[in-house]
């Protein structure tokens, strides 16, 4: 997905002279062409994410469209107040693109984990949150949303689904229809969800935009009272979006996501998938148990 990020940005920089790239001292080699071709709009800002976010706000005030890039904990948690006030409160068009989602950088330890990014960004009015499942989907979603005059967060994962869909910003897709319940797959969890649930008589919905949340598609595709959200971030993050989407209808909600605890082991992301119960086998077991299959 990172390679696609570079390709999409460099292509757009050639077309859109308002696009400015700010790197938090990562991805500098990857963007070497941008540094050469668009040197006046490509900056390695350094390791100062708070200032980088405010600088982006200043650029946006001057009719530019900034793209900020760093590792998730530094792009989001370190500078949360700058995102809140400078970008969201002032309602400025800026795009934050993170890598290292949840425990992608497992071996680097908890300082580089970020399963809480979506939960805190969801608390900010006006913040758009996009979680593509494949590189092609990133390209499609970024082009659709980057210049829409709102702050937007793009969460890039090391995990990628096998198949890309014709996704649309702020709209969910119905992947399959069934009767026992609804499984909501977020971004790169779709692969595991399909492996876990393709033989189950369930509806599968695919979300690549979390905010704004497409409540209509969920509300219209709940064949039973059972809803399961498979979340690549802290479990239960989307509970309030689901609650508001259902408009008072009683449901049984289950979340399969990252446990709300510091994951103090190292290894690889797939080791944490096993420990957190997020492999397709685990998801299948948990779905069957919840659905009484």
């Amino acid at each position, binding site marked *: 997905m990172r390679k696609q990020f570079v390709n999409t940005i460099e292509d757009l920089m050639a077309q859109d002279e308002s696009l400015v790239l700010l790197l938090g001292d990562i991805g500098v080699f990857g963007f070497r062409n941008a540094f050469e071709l668009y040197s006046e709009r490509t900056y390695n800002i350094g390791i100062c994410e708070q200032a980088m976010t405010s*600088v982006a706000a*200043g650029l946006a*005030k*001057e009719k*530019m469209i900034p793209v900020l890039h760093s590792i998730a904990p530094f792009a989001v948690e370190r500078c949360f107040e700058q995102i809140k006030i400078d970008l969201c409160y002032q309602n400025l068009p800026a795009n934050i693109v993170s890598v290292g989602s949840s425990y992608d950088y497992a071996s680097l330890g908890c300082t580089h984990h970020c399963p809480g990014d979506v939960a805190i960004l969801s608390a900010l009015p006006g913040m758009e949150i996009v979680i593509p499942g494949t590189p092609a989907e990133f390209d499609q979603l970024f082009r659709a949303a980057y210049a829409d005059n709102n702050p937007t967060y793009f969460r890039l994962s090391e995990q990628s689904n096998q198949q890309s869909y014709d996704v649309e910003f702020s709209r969910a897709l119905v992947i399959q229809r069934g009767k026992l319940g609804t499984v909501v797959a977020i971004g790169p969890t779709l692969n595991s969800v399909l492996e876990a649930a393709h033989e189950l008589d369930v509806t599968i919905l695919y979300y690549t935009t979390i905010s704004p949340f497409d409540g209509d598609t969920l509300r219209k595709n709940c064949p039973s009272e059972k809803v399961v959200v498979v979340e690549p971030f802290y479990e239960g993050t989307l509970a309030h979006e689901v609650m508001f989407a259902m408009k008072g209808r009683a449901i049984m909600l289950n979340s399969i996501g990252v446990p709300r605890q510091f994951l103090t082991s190292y290894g690889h992301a797939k080791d944490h998938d096993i420990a957190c119960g997020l492999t397709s086998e685990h998801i299948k077991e948990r779905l069957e148990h919840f659905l009484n299959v």
Partner: protein
Amino acid sequence: MKSIINELKRLIVKTAAAAGEGHIGSAFSVLDLLWVLYAQVLRIDPKNPKCDDRDRFVLSKGHSSLALYAVLAKSGFFPVAELERFTAFDSFLGGHPDHNKVPGVEASTGSLGHGLPMGTGMAMGMGIRNVDRRVIVLVGDGECNEGSIWESALLAAHHRLSNLTCIVDYNHSTDRALSLGDIAAKFASFGWATTTINGHDHKAIYDAMIRTDPTRPTAIIAETIKGFGCKEMENNPAWHHRAPTQDELPVILKELA
């Protein structure tokens, strides 16, 4: 010049008294700086506050909003009578300035440490777009405790933002917590051109503000007195955020007559 400053101070005091709140001491600390800026330095059009060909001013220490509102109103950005509704529920003049509400306000500030990095981004954006105007940011000395101030000081010097000026309102009010020492030397060590002035001397303010360095950003360290012009308030922490009582008001207004 003293008569207009005292007129603005009386307006500020009456505004705070009517609202029952306000950072009067901070407003008096920066008022001379703001008045010289708006009256003599900034290229602006109050009738067209978003004109591209304008200088940008960011009040990073947003709690000095009463001074900014008084100066903006007196400069013609909105009617002076609007100050009578300061901090009312549906007023556009809040305790801290809102970019999306107040004509002439370039950035929403209040949480400290945001204005200088935003001004840095504005200066960079103006450079990219070849807009030949200046960005002037006013920060507080206490605000210079924030790391983001020094992050942007590094950035502005590294990118040689000669169109950026940072004024430091050095009233020493937070020395009790964290002494900043020689702020001019600190900015100079980061690569800025620096000058230190009496922040209540209008000629010194003007002379400093019209000077820029063609190769680097400029920091003006303005030595000021919090609550300047009102003996009861000067350097008195009790007046950081409070309004005069009905008994105090006439005494203060008389002193500012």
